[in-house]
């Protein structure tokens, strides 16, 4: 509970007088799952990470939205150091250790940490040089874009974190280095919205939405309901939090006070450190923190975060989840569970709409940078 109390999300919950019990439960289960994961790997693999090879987890465990016995574990062994053929062996040992960790849940044997999806994006090795150097262009594959964006928007290392921190910093720097100007031309005393980073976040969101259709085709409509619900909620959440990070660079008055009139390079470092600090938060914490820091309105925050709490509640409900997993697009039109998904996601969207299109500070930035 102590850890939860430190999160901006739960500080805001207290301030607004809301009760987000499902989010609190998910937070608590995520903390336990992270500890268990590290303990399992230390016991079965030994020193599974080093200063140059870190285990990074993504998805619900990184977002602290872990649902025990339901959530998948998306992970990669991130390499930022000398080439070494043993890295693959370690990745395989991690995978094997996780496969062996089985437990009984409701009379059923289930892996403690379910395998990642079948795309090959996770459960394998990831390399820093690709993430850093292949931004845009022919070689920036869907997998590379996904790993890079999730590294920034929803990731956390398990165990040592030096390589993880180096790579995240390097990627942020890379985005900022490509900006011709960091400051607004008209005033010179305010950071611009970092367009290159923002455009890639927008691109990632569009890619996820397009891939939703592509994956449905590839998988013959399997898990349509569940995937659609996630697209409406958790995928949209990380897109929104990414946009807020970029907009905060322009709107946060405390950051503007640091601007140096002498050095472009040092301004880049100030901005990079600011973004780095922000991306260390979970997406929900970014929303909560921005709501406070940028004055986005408590009513909108309560609407969208309460909707998200309901979503986590629904994902925790075995029966609802099971129905969503087998639901086709056609069935969703009349299914009452999916009717709930629609209602919750509309509330979530209404909160986001208030943030991005009604707030007088965010609205002009959303129109200028988020749409075109």
């Amino acid at each position, binding site marked *: 509970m102590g850890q939860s109390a430190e999160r901006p999300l739960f500080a805001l919950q207290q301030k607004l007088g809301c009760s987000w019990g499902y989010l609190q439960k998910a937070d608590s289960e995520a903390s336990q799952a992270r500890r268990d994961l590290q303990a399992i790997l230390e016991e079965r693999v030994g020193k599974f990470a080093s*200063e*140059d090879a870190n285990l990074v987890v993504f998805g619900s465990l990184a977002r602290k939205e872990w649902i025990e016995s339901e959530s998948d574990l998306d992970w990669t062994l991130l390499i930022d*150091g*000398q080439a070494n053929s043993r890295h693959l062996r370690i990745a395989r040992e991690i995978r094997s250790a996780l496969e062996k960790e089985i437990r009984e849940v409701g009379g059923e044997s289930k892996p403690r940490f379910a395998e990642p999806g079948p795309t090959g994006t996770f459960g394998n090795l990831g390399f820093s040089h690709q993430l850093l150097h292949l931004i845009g262009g022919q070689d920036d594959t869907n997998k590379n874009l996904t790993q890079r964006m999730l590294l920034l928007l929803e990731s956390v290392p398990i165990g040592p974190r*030096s390589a993880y*921190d*180096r790579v995240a*910093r*390097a990627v*942020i*720097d890379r985005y900022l280095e490509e900006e011709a100007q960091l400051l607004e031309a008209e005033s010179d005393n305010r950071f611009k919205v970092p367009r290159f980073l923002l455009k890639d976040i927008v691109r990632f969101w569009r890619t996820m939405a397009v891939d939703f259709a592509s994956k449905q085709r590839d998988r013959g409509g399997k898990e349509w309901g569940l995937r659609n619900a996630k697209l409406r909620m958790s995928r949209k959440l990380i897109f929104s939090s990414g946009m807020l990070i970029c907009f905060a660079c322009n709107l946060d008055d405390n950051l503007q006070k640091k601007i140096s009139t*002498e*050095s472009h*390079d*040092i301004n880049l*470092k*100030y901005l*990079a*450190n600011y973004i*780095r600090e922000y991306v260390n938060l979970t997406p929900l914490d970014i929303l909560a923190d921005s709501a406070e820091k940028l004055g986005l309105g408590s009513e909108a925050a309560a609407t969208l975060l309460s909707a998200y709490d309901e979503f986590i509640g629904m994902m925790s409900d075995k029966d609802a989840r099971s129905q969503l997993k087998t639901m086709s697009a056609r069935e969703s039109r009349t299914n009452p569970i999916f009717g709930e998904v629609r209602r919750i996601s509309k509330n979530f969207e209404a909160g986001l709409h208030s943030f991005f299109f009604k707030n007088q500070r965010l609205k002009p930035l959303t129109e200028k940078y988020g749409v075109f």
Partner: protein
Amino acid sequence: MRMVGFSTGALAYGEFEKALQLLSGTTANAVELSALRQNELDPLVHALSGLALGQFGHVSVHLPSSIVPEFENTLLEAVPHLPNEWLLVTHPDVIRTWERWESLGERLCIENMDKRKPIGQTASDLRQIFARLPRASFCLDIGHAHQVDPTMGEAVLIIEEFRGRLRQLHVSEVNSQSKHDPISLESASAFSLVSHLIPHDVPAILESRLPSFSVAAVEAEIESARRILDGVGALELAGD
């Protein structure tokens, strides 16, 4: 002009007199007497009175960086034999009895660590260390900071927070295996990003292990460091 010199350990492993002789032919006006291994401390203490240190406006001692726990007491007992005005550059992971080290006050000069060490790499790590050693000063190893975060974002955080304690720099390129190499163009470029944040009266000690230990090679590395720390751009250093 900023005081710049060398670590004796970088110039002549375990032979500080030989290193000082080499430096006597250069413009070095700062030196760090290296006793990085615990068996080097006693010989250094006994040789002090005979060392030729007249050319140096700044002298420090690098205390052993890797010790067996029982040696901590021996180490602290040797400290009173070192001149009071010399900084005692120390790796935080050798400290066990914190209150005894805190009693050294500002002379105790804590260095930020490379990626191999479990503590002392980041501003956040150092904050915890200085909370236990509130009077200690700080030696920024710019090569370590660059190795931990090549973008130098962490170095900016460290300098911003601990500039008031900063009494010495360590300068070199620290490679992926944590060896101290001569400053490359990439490192020079990175160091230049933060050089203007470092006060001019903070002396710099080079730790580069040069391919040749001639007077000319040592002087060239000193000159290179002076130019980087004076804010000469990396491309200018490369002659572009």
